[in-house]
């Protein structure tokens, strides 16, 4: 594996290997001394063209726990906001000797452009590009699902296992969601069944080619599909305004149809868990009852994010033998 650009590039073996490695990383994080010497002397650049404190500090923590040097390069307050191009930024980082570039960009495909342009020799990790992909989010979601739902529902070791047989409902703004796209790809690769639930305005034209079912009614999907997990997507309030596209009539109507509240939580199978990539809009796509219930694994997702990103950086920068398929 040379880069991590899209969850769709991961083979079944790649994905399971990353999850297994993340499990090993997580085990080290229970120790008193959390830092490993693995990436000492390597430089990881966090290149963030879009604000995202959560994802940036997750990658930063992961790199630092592996003893890598971390440079944070954010668009605001840097030359990028003065109109410097992606190319010149990349060439600058290359000159400084970046071993890995973790990139968050508002343009779909920017990490792909960076990886295929020859502007940098470093490994490129996609930390979210436009409305395209967010592969480490999907990996941490899969890791969380596996921990709770695989191996006698979390009671025994799930190492080496995939997500075969699980049913996951992904609810919300699928159209604009890179989290949804990455999850559909990865969950499918790992053998899970995926149902996308959204008002028809927030489902992309062309979704019929995705390895997922589509439902327009959350209550029906919960009642008929008995999902093992529901993944609630963030819905931006501005999407309802005419300028934002007028995708739904009002936040209240959205919440009535697609919000996860106490009643819908109660209707889920007893073992089902609730995920959310954060940050949450409490009261819009998820009620406080659901967000704070013991079924919600939202805080744990954050911790798992560090372990998964450690695994990805480790495999890209220090993985010696590789069974994975190059994305190039």
């Amino acid at each position, binding site marked *: 594996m040379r880069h991590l650009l899209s969850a769709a590039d991961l083979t079944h073996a790649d994905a399971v290997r990353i999850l297994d490695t993340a499990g090993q990383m997580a085990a080290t994080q229970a120790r008193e001394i959390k830092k490993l010497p693995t990436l000492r002397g390597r430089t990881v650049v966090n290149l963030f063209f879009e604000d995202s404190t959560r994802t940036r500090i997750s990658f930063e923590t992961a790199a630092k726990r592996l003893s890598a040097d971390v440079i944070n390069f954010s668009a605001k307050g840097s030359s990028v906001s003065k109109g410097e191009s992606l190319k010149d930024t990349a060439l600058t980082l290359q000159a400084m000797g970046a071993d890995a570039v973790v990139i968050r960009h508002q*343009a779909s495909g920017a990490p*792909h452009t960076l990886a*295929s342009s020859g502007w940098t020799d470093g490994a490129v990790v996609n930390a979210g*590009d436009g409305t*395209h*992909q967010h592969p480490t989010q999907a990996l941490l979601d899969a890791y969380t699902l596996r921990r709770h739902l695989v191996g006698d529902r979390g009671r025994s070791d799930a190492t080496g296992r995939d997500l075969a047989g699980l049913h996951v409902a992904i609810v919300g703004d699928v159209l604009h969601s890179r989290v949804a796209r990455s999850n559909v790809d990865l969950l499918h690769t790992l053998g899970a069944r995926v149902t996308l639930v959204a008002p028809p305005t927030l489902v*992309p034209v*062309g979704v019929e080619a995705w390895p997922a079912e589509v439902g327009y009614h959350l209550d029906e999907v919960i009642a008929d599909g008995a999902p093992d997990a529901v993944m609630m997507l963030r819905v931006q309030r501005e999407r309802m305004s005419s300028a934002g596209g007028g995708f739904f009539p009002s936040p209240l109507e959205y919440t009535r149809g697609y919000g996860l509240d106490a009643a819908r939580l109660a209707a889920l199978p007893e073992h089902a868990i609730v995920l959310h990539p954060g940050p949450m809009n409490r009261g819009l796509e998820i009620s406080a009852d659901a967000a704070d219930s013991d079924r919600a694994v939202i805080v744990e997702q954050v911790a798992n994010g560090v372990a998964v990103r450690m695994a990805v950086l480790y495999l890209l920068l220090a993985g010696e033998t590789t069974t994975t398929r190059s994305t190039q």
Partner: protein
Amino acid sequence: MTTYLLRDVSPLGEGRTDVLLANGVIAAMGEHLTAPDDAVVIDGRSLVLLPGLVDLHTHLREPGREDAETIVTGTRAAALGGFTAVHAMANTTPTQDTAGVVEQVWRLGRQAGWTDVFPVGAVTVGLEGERLAELGAMAESAARVRVFSDDGKCVHDPVVMRRALEYVKAFDGVIAQHAQEPRLTAGAQMHEGVVSAELGLAGWPAVAEEAIIARDVLLAEHVGSRLHVCHLSTAGSVEIIRWAKSRGIDVTAEVTPHHLVLTDELARGYAPLFKVNPPLRTQRDVEAVREGLADGTIDIVATDHAPHPREDKDCEWAAAAFGMTGLETALSVVQETMVDTGRMTWTDVARVLSTTPARIGRVEGHGRPIAVGEPANLTLVDPDVRRVINPEQQATKSVNSPFRGRELSGCVVATFLRGRATVLDGSSCDEDVVVAR
């Protein structure tokens, strides 16, 4: 002026004859013509002779974006592509929306000497879509503008479009519409469908083109005007034009070479070279526009040659400019997709790349029959050559060709503008053209 004897050429790909070019016209045709002493003889045994090509849709970028193209570089590229006349689109800076600007472009074209340049006038002031530009003044100027277009932008206001269609009737003008419903395409990056859903790029739905074409053909019918549809790209658009023609509506339509062969699948690598407006569509649409071109529903092929400087394509997809070059590859693409496949003859090629575009643009002296006494605006093509496209070797100032590294059929051997060679042996005749200026 040099006299040329084209020996054993095949006019429109039918039969063999000698053709003598003298004093700017076709002076004689027939077997075994005697070459005058000073004549340059061109062995044309494997060559097809076409009327000089006429492009109804070229972006020469001058004035304003001379970093992308100039009238000299763009028309030199056009000559190498077999063109003897090009229509220069109005989206320059300043906009070609006054008699002064169109006359400037027209004069620069004459000075350049590579092809005739017919400026297209903007329909509305500054392409803003609000107020009609001085269409009459442009029509009466030295540039004699007959084609008006806000290309790059759609004349989306139905009242403005209606007025424009009506107004240009006074001087036999035509409105060439860039059909793109703006509200349905806000922020659009590529064709909306399976590929855009996967790539997370904002979709440019086919309906945004088709809805405007449907409206415009009905408006043209209502006011009895002439409408030309630029670069139609979808199967649905072909159906609407077919229907409109069956009703007797005075509409013509064009397709670009790239929409005859490339599809939205090419966006998968996020290479901005394939970012164009209207976007590359699906294989089904490609098949439909080929069918439409073959059966005459689509009247012409026009290049929509859209040069851009490197930095506007050397970036992430969303930041890149829309457009691709096409003057030096258009004829090859038409040959490969339509002639080599047996769907069209060379006579058809002359119709869609010369005769009909000249008629739509009301251009005199171009797109004429190959006959004694006609102006010697001619193109010699070798259809048997295969060549690999290298944008760095093209005459256009920009390198954003989508056919980079691709092998295409056929090449232009010679181009004659009123009997003067602008291209010989596949190379431009720089000295001749400079001397003739």
